[in-house]
């Protein structure tokens, strides 16, 4: 029997739970701070979210900054590598009103963060050249990765112009008896021919190449190859995904060949360390410049870098960047901007970052940066290869928010259907294109 007292208690308990749920929901969505921005850019507290692997580097930049700005207390908080984990972190930080003033951002994440109002529009300050930091000094291709869909906002400033090059292990070439080393005139056919020869000669103990497309979701590999082959991923003019046309299918077949013909490194598991090149298990690898620091430490063999091969006479170099953004909810936007103006200046943060392989994504940085004076003898061809890479890098266009988070998983699904499921390239990538286009409608 339900007593009146019991019923009241139940109603109260239910109200409490619903109230708590509602409070949670509203806390998630309501903006936290006001617009009480610090006007004094020489003192105060500043928080920066930073990729956990980059924190040691950034701590040295912060220490340098504090030499001339001792009144600014800067806290670095780690950001996970995985995008899903990072979004979880941003959500919980939003709930507890602790989103860092300066937000770690990267090209493939910007649309998501920007379209959800998490990032402050930096365009007015960049247009005005506030504190000497001007948008016009940046290479448009890199800065445009942080544009909004309509180009009316810029919500991030790229830190480093990262681009891809061909890493090769001379010792493994010699072990396999191959004298045909990569040159600047190599085509994809040359790359694949030599890769097959090395895999065949290795007797199964190492591979000719670490398969460039990885799990199938490496847009910085796929896009330049598609572009070189006369296709694309997303066409901003038609506002459609167009990677499964005849030319696109031909490129996907080329990219998938090391898997489907089984002479490249095998399709990776979720938790597998596939850095076979730094482990001396692959003779060649397509990688970005930041990988050099690790290879210099771990690879005892003789190795070098070269230009990526061409496809149909066109470069296949890809690229990308990570960026610093200012949180839309930050109460310290002026202070955050003051730090960023120092960080991006040639004699400030960029000078401190040069030993870490950072290539400023500015016109001046690319042509006269201190990276051109790298005296480390390994890899010997680093500077010419980097110059070729940064000037030929094809950066993918911004993907509309409706499909931005689905692009990589959908391409990965298509690759798995071909490699592990035995579907045809036409069927798998045609379905992937249809799925993505349906999201845009």
């Amino acid at each position, binding site marked *: 029997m339900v007593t009146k007292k019991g019923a009241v208690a139940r109603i109260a308990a239910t109200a409490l739970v619903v109230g708590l749920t509602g409070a949670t929901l509203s806390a998630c969505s309501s903006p936290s701070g006001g617009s009480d921005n610090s006007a004094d850019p020489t003192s105060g507290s500043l928080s920066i979210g930073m990729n956990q692997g980059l924190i040691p580097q950034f701590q040295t930049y912060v220490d340098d900054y504090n030499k001339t700005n001792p009144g600014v207390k800067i806290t670095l908080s780690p950001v996970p590598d995985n995008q899903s984990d990072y979004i979880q972190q941003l959500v919980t930080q939003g709930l507890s009103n602790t989103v860092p003033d300066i937000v770690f951002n990267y090209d493939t994440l910007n649309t998501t963060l920007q379209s959800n109002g998490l990032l402050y529009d930096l365009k007015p300050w960049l247009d005005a050249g506030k504190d000497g930091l001007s948008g016009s000094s940046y290479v448009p291709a890199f800065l445009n990765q942080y544009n909004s869909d309509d180009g009316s906002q810029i919500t991030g400033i790229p830190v480093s112009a990262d681009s891809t090059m061909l890493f090769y292990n001379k010792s493994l070439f010699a072990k396999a008896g191959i004298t045909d080393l990569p040159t600047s005139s190599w085509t994809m056919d040359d790359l694949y021919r030599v890769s097959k020869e090395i895999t065949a000669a290795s007797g199964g103990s190492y591979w000719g190449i670490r398969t460039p497309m990885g799990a199938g979701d490496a847009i910085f590999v796929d896009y330049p190859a598609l572009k070189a082959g006369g296709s694309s991923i997303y066409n901003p003019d038609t506002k459609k995904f167009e990677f499964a046309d005849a030319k696109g299918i031909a490129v996907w077949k080329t990219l998938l060949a090391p898997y489907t013909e089984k002479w490249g490194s095998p*399709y990776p598991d979720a*938790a597998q360390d596939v850095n076979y090149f730094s482990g001396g298990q692959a003779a060649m690898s397509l990688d970005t410049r930041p990988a050099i620091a690790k290879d210099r430490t771990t690879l005892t063999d003789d190795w070098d870098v070269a230009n990526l091969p061409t496809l149909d006479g066109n470069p296949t170099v890809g690229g990308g960047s990570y960026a610093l953004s200012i949180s839309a909810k930050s109460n310290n936007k002026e202070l955050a901007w003051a730090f960023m103006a120092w960080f991006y200046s040639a004699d400030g943060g960029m000078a401190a970052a040069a030993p870490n392989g950072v290539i400023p994504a500015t016109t001046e940085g690319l042509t006269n940066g201190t990276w051109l004076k790298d005296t480390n003898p390994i890899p010997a061809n680093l500077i010419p290869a980097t110059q070729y890479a940064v000037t030929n890098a094809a950066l993918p266009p911004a993907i509309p928010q409706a499909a931005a988070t689905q692009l990589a998983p959908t391409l990965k699904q298509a690759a798995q259907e071909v490699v592990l499921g035995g579907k045809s390239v036409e069927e798998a990538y045609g379905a992937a294109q249809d799925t993505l286009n349906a999201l845009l409608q």
Partner: protein
Amino acid sequence: MKTRTRYSKLDALTAWSFLTPALVLFILFIVIPTVAGIVLSFFSWNFFNEPKFVGLNNFAKLFDDPSAWSSLGVTMEFIVLGVVPTTIIGFMLAVLISANMPAVGVIRVLYFIPVVLSVAVSGVLWVFLYDPRQGPIAAAFRAFGIQIPNLLQTQSTAVPALVVMMVWLALPIVIILYLAALQRVPDDIYAAAALDGAGAWRTLWSMTWPNVLPTTLIVAVLQVINFASSSLDVSLIMTNGGPLNASRSLGLYSYQEAFTHQDVGYASVLSVLQLVVIVAIVVVGRVVTSRSSK
């Protein structure tokens, strides 16, 4: 009578003071998230925007989504393949450990190892064990001239491979539960069985097993919950639901919808479905067990 009432009140007070900390935690971490999940399933929300009430739209989407039903199938596969072996192996090992056999001390230490390892560490360890080139399992097969496929990347073997790891992870708790149950079995029934000439197997299945049946029910319920929910973190770490979603359980699908596709409303619907499935299995299990015990 008055004294008795005072004692009852004191007992109740004591009971509540012991219960309260656990109850508060239970409400905070179980009840409120569960209710919040149910409420969120009626909203469209991407974490960042204003949640928008959409009624039953997310539930309607569930019925048109084949991926949800295939993920439910994967969850059932985890449960079916995992619960029975965990229960039987756990019982057998507990019997062995409780017996006075040689080196039992070493075994008692060894069986507890999985408990002190995190799921992440265990996942990395088992990925190495399953590695088709360098892993010891593939090496052992190669020694007999047998080439095995990449177990985590073959659609037919991915879930069984994960289940083996999950059984290994789950065994310590199951063994502890059974050890406690075995200590409560009165010695005189074994003496009586011995007098009647019952052998070891006969004693095990006719004396020991019926006496630990209530514990078996608890173990089964816990393991249904374990294999339904732990399949999320294990498959997230070891296969990310692959290959081709062959190991994507409902929990992982819900996680991906929430944190990769940022569709929190639909992710909540999937969580509600998982809750319903677990409750249904547990209720059916209880009914069957209570009828058979009568």
